[in-house]
């Protein structure tokens, strides 16, 4: 058995309070991992950690490397006095329409909403991080809240850090907000790629809705115009994207705060000739 010191203060030197202090404390004997102080984060964690569980059987962990329950596109546009975000409410298990009332647009605080496509459990995890942050803000009781740009920046760091651990959060996230009289719209990809723009879309929306937005969007649109454009984009996405359903939500951020609408359906028309005979222009298909 190692002799226990009588005092925690070995700095007194041997002989001051008894012979036992001449011995190093058990704590000092334990081997410590070598840390490169220059890179170590202040929080005390390692600078770069791959989950040891993942390496236990010599193989990298694979099951987080592919999404299971997913959401499709999120769209966002800025307009004269705010930001609109829209998405459908589907959580798809592969191509099975498994969860039809999954709300993918979530309020962060009075100035900010986020919407996510991709793995929905990862989105729930991200929301937990954000909720904790905004709860802390609430308890600080100084009236300050996370600004939309800060939320966006935070998410870039989180997603980029996770991709560095080879364990990415499988999401494309849109952050919409309104702060200091200006609308904010930014996106973060699953590997931490980020940018801000006047109108945004994730996933399929990039191909289906963005062209429409580029054509019709103006920064000085009224709310009605912006809503109409959003409906049009949603409809186009719904027609072309098989992993979507006709049940949408629209989130609005203005100087007055955040409101996420109740789910609604859009009127669709499937009577188009090309819809009825899709093979007409593609010989060899059925």
């Amino acid at each position, binding site marked *: 058995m190692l002799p226990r010191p009588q005092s925690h203060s070995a700095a007194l030197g041997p002989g001051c309070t008894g012979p036992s202090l001449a011995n190093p404390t058990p704590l000092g004997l334990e081997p410590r991992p070598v840390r490169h102080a220059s890179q170590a984060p202040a929080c005390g964690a390692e600078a770069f950690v791959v989950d040891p569980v993942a390496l236990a059987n010599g193989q990298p962990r694979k099951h987080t490397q592919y999404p299971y329950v997913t959401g499709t596109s999120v769209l966002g546009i800025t307009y004269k006095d705010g930001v609109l975000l829209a998405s459908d409410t589907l959580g798809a298990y592969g191509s099975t329409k498994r969860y039809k009332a999954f709300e993918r647009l979530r309020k962060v605080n009075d100035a900010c909403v986020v919407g996510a496509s991709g793995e929905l459990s990862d989105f729930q995890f991200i929301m*937990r991080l954000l909720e*904790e942050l905004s*709860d*802390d803000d*609430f*308890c600080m*009781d100084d009236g300050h809240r996370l600004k939309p740009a800060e939320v966006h920046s935070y998410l870039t760091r989180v997603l980029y850090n996770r991709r560095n651990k080879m364990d990415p959060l499988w999401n494309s996230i849109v952050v919409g907000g309104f702060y200091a009289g200006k609308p904010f719209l930014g996106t973060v990809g699953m590997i931490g790629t980020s940018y801000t723009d006047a109108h945004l879309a994730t996933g399929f929306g990039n191909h289906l809705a963005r062209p429409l937005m580029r054509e019709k969007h103006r920064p000085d649109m009224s709310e009605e115009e912006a809503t109409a454009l959003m409906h049009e984009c949603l409809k186009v996405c719904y027609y072309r994207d098989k992993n979507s359903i006709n049940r949408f939500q629209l989130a609005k951020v203005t100087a007055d705060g955040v409101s996420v609408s109740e789910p609604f359906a859009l009127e669709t028309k499937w009577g188009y000739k090309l819809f009825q005979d899709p093979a007409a222009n593609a010989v060899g298909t059925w």
Partner: protein
Amino acid sequence: MLEQHSNRRTFPVDRHAGLAVAGVAADGRSIVGRAMAEANNYKSTYGEPIPGHVLAERLASYVHLFNLYWAYRPYGVASLLAVYAREGPQLYLVEPSGTMHRYFGAAVGKGRQGAKNEIEKLKLEEMTCREGINAVAKILHQVHDEEKGFELELAWICEESGKQFQRVPQQLADEADAAAKAALEAEDMDD
């Protein structure tokens, strides 16, 4: 001389919970910090806001520890814990000894005896939150020295605040303050 609102006595602990402390101010802040940590910890473990009785019990156990060892002194604060959770609105009184009890109405601090007497006269079951604010403001004026002056600080957790901890809007607080003063003056005139 003191800047207004720089000496807070009511603190948010979580969205649905708040603490009012009487006694050593620094001890009070320390307890508030502990309460925040407990609420945060409960939420991250169980995924829902901490119920009132759990928070009160944990706080009481915490302050009780400081009675047990010679190296520590007991906390110098009695705190009122207000929680609006699934069980509805609740009020707890946590004392430095480590006891905690649930009350319909309670008072802590120097003037607690007088305040308790006044609270007992109120019909709490029939009272709305807005009426409660007026009553509380009046009692606070009653139990304070007239010359000394004090800063009235009101916070509530109710339907009107969305079941969240909130400082009573300044306008309402001012109204309650004025109404309390007027009511007391009217009573003085009667005597």
